[in-house]
């Protein structure tokens, strides 16, 4: 039985042969030529159909557009609020990290975190205001520090805020000690030093061999400030204008002029 005697069988065989050849060629060199030919041939038709499809798209009316605009504006407002909240949370997270570090290093102290809400422009970096007060357990003379070191003490306490006098103020008098030589002194400041962000260690023993680079910490003498709170590093050793006594210029660890958050020691948990 000759299969090719069936009607159309020869045409079918011929087309099959052509398609198998096209398959082999296409597999070998790709079908980009055929694609480009078909696209060129159908280009005018596709222009017509694309135009027809676009004309069939319903246009939005003015009220629909206004409604869509209002909805999008609402979404923008909501996203902006979320962004503000995100930044707040991010800042709070960083604050908590710093607080955690301070807490770890000062486990024996009761600490309260606070943010700077006001700085006295006239006094420069000598005073600033924190957002915690008596209701948070803040008392006058409570030490104020950051994760880098001591920045000052609470000089006034209101119900919801407190004023901090920094170690750059000439009214500050903190008993400090040189970690290397164990020389004690009084930390204070002057107008000139405060302008350059530095404090002064006075009342040094005349035989003291305090030197540049020495680390200064609180001594704990007097009972107001706990001992071993980092203060700063000696940047210079000088004599007064009459050459009568020696003093050390101390650069605080913390950049007090740019402090935005701080921690207040309100109590000592354990001795």
């Amino acid at each position, binding site marked *: 039985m000759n299969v090719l005697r069936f009607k159309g069988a020869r045409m079918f065989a011929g087309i099959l042969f052509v398609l198998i050849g096209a398959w082999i060629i*296409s597999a070998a060199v790709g079908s980009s030529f055929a694609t480009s030919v078909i696209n060129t041939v159908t280009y005018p038709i596709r222009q017509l159909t694309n135009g027809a499809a676009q004309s069939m798209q319903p246009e939005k009316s003015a009220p629909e557009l206004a409604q869509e605009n209002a909805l999008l504006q609402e979404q923008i407002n909501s996203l902006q609020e979320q962004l503000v909240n995100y930044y707040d949370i991010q800042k709070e997270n960083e604050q908590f990290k710093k607080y955690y570090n301070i807490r770890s290093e000062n486990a024996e102290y009761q600490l309260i975190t606070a943010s700077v809400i006001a700085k006295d422009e006239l006094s420069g970096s000598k005073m600033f205001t924190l957002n915690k007060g008596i209701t948070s357990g803040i008392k006058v003379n409570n030490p104020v520090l950051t994760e880098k070191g001591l920045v000052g003490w609470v000089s006034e306490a209101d119900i919801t805020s407190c004023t901090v006098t920094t170690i750059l103020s000439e009214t500050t008098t903190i008993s400090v000690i040189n970690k290397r030589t164990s020389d004690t002194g009084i930390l204070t400041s002057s107008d000139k030093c405060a302008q350059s962000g530095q404090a002064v260690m006075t009342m040094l023993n005349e035989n003291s061999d305090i030197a540049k680079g020495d680390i200064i910490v609180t001594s704990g003498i007097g009972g107001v400030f706990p001992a071993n709170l980092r203060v700063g590093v000696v940047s210079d050793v000088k004599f007064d204008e009459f050459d009568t006594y020696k003093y050390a210029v101390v650069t605080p660890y913390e950049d007090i002029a740019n402090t935005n958050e701080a921690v207040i020691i309100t109590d000592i948990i354990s001795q």
Partner: protein
Amino acid sequence: MNGKKYLRLFLYIIADLLCFSLQNTHGMLFGIIGMTPLLTCALAYGVAVYDNVNFALITAAVSGVLSEITLGSVIGPYAILLTAMCFLINRSSNYFDSGALFAVITAVGYSVLACLGVLICFSVQNGINISFEQFVNHGLLRGLYTWLFCVIACMIMKKQPVED
């Protein structure tokens, strides 16, 4: 073949190109769950049912090649499948007096197989597996939608005299 037949064949190919443009224009055809029918396959089916075997084979081959170009796959396998199916349909349709009835009965299987063939070619070309959801959407649903157009094609076309 006389001039009229050549003209008819030429018009079939033009119609094929038009169907190819229509089915590839976004937003032109109403989609069901995003599925649009294969108009080229429906046209090939209509020609296979109502016209002679030579025209059926040529139209089916052109439809298959156009579908493969749309997929970006190698040219050949799908066109061979479509040509073979249209050959069988053409040979079978002579035993039925009513082309529309024949279309209603056989076009379902043809359409589903044609759409599954497109899906398989696409999957092989891109090296991806066919999920059940794709099988249902692109195979069955699209096949049924294409079947509808096969029936319409049969209703539009006129039975041509059988050639010796």
